[in-house]
């Protein structure tokens, strides 16, 4: 079964089982997102892909496409909402871009640039979570984690290792490592794993690989995330 939906006035085809996000990406339409990645089970945590479907706000990454849906992806209201959501992510962690080696290649930063976010609006939490630098090749700065769950999904679905999980409730939720000591060095992760490279922010980093690209040549120095995302992403389930 298939049909068409309408995104910002454009008719977009979909196949049965596809979400609005899947259909949009296939049609070359960018819907801002951080926790979504084609080829991985949708997660629905970042809420950046909030679109208006038949008058109601829905997450495009989890909402199934259905024939005749009217989807609004571009409006002042959605821009404001997405900007506020991104500001929440910034104040919840310690996103000091000037000293972060992911700067210029960071999807959180890239989305914020795309949304023309100029300030953080909210009071800062100044999170105080310890760095895990125990592993010889990989490190975690927990204060930059946005709980997108991509490392959890990558470790389970691609690496078949189950290294990561999210534990705790509410503001105390945190990324944990499934090892006896709770540290990365005692886990099954290796530097070649998908989970080691999938982090959209500067939370999971490969050691000794920082600051290789000159300013001006980094991913989002020249191309907006809307462009990068569409050129690099394939449909859900077609890795």
């Amino acid at each position: 079964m298939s049909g068409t939906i309408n995104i910002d006035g454009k008719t977009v085809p979909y196949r049965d089982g596809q979400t609005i996000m899947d259909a949009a990406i296939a049609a070359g339409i960018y819907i801002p997102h951080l926790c979504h990645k084609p080829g991985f089970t949708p997660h629905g945590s970042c809420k950046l892909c909030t679109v208006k479907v038949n008058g109601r706000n829905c997450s495009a990454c989890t909402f199934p496409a259905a024939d005749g849906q009217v989807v609004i992806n571009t409006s002042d209201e959605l821009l404001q909402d997405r900007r506020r959501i991104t500001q929440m992510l910034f104040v919840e962690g310690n996103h000091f871009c000037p000293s972060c080696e992911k700067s210029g290649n960071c999807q959180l930063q890239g989305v914020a640039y795309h949304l023309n976010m100029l300030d953080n609006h909210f009071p800062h939490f100044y999170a105080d979570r310890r760095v895990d630098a125990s592993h010889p090749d990989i490190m975690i700065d927990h204060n930059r984690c946005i709980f997108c769950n991509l490392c959890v999904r990558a470790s389970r679905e691609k690496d078949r290792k189950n290294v990561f999980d999210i534990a705790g409730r509410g503001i105390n939720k945190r990324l944990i490592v499934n090892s006896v000591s709770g540290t990365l060095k005692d886990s099954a992760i290796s530097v070649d794993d998908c989970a080691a490279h999938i982090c959209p922010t500067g939370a999971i980093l490969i050691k000794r690989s920082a600051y290789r690209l000159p300013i001006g040549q980094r991913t989002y120095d020249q191309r907006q995330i809307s462009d990068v995302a569409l050129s690099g992403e394939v449909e859900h389930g077609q890795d």
Partner: protein
Amino acid sequence: MAKIKVATVSLAGCFGCHMSFLDIDERLIALLEVAEFDRSPLTDIEHCGPCDVGLIEGGVCNAENVHVLREFRKNCKTLVAVGACAINGGLPAMRNQFALEECLLEAYRDGIGVENPHIPNDPELPLLLDKVHPIHEIVKVDYFLPGCPPSADVFWTFLSALLAGREPSLPYELVHYD
């Protein structure tokens, strides 16, 4: 026509935003045709008088920063947070992960090469706040210029719009946090 009055200050800043402002180079001469400086590290004026624009660099890390910031807010019609520190505390806010006492003891008692170790306690010195804060947590801020520092073109684009009475905005190319 009276010139636009601009005041500038560095709170818990590194003066890098002021240097980047001066990077507008010869455009500074054009700016001085229409604007004059009130209190600023570039002038000898000690207190901020009534101004059109106040540019604030740096976060707020001690008691004096709070007083100065409030003086600027009281006197400036338009107050601008300039740079990462003013916007989110910046790299100085990385000290928020540590107790203030720990920081002081490390610097003035336990650090390598410290002579006559004691935490400075002269009442003339402003006390540090327990945490570094962005300026919007102390006063209302009208505009934000991100960057560490914002580029000279950010200053120029912003001030040009403001002086022409247009609503300032920054295009994608000028928005950086690093």
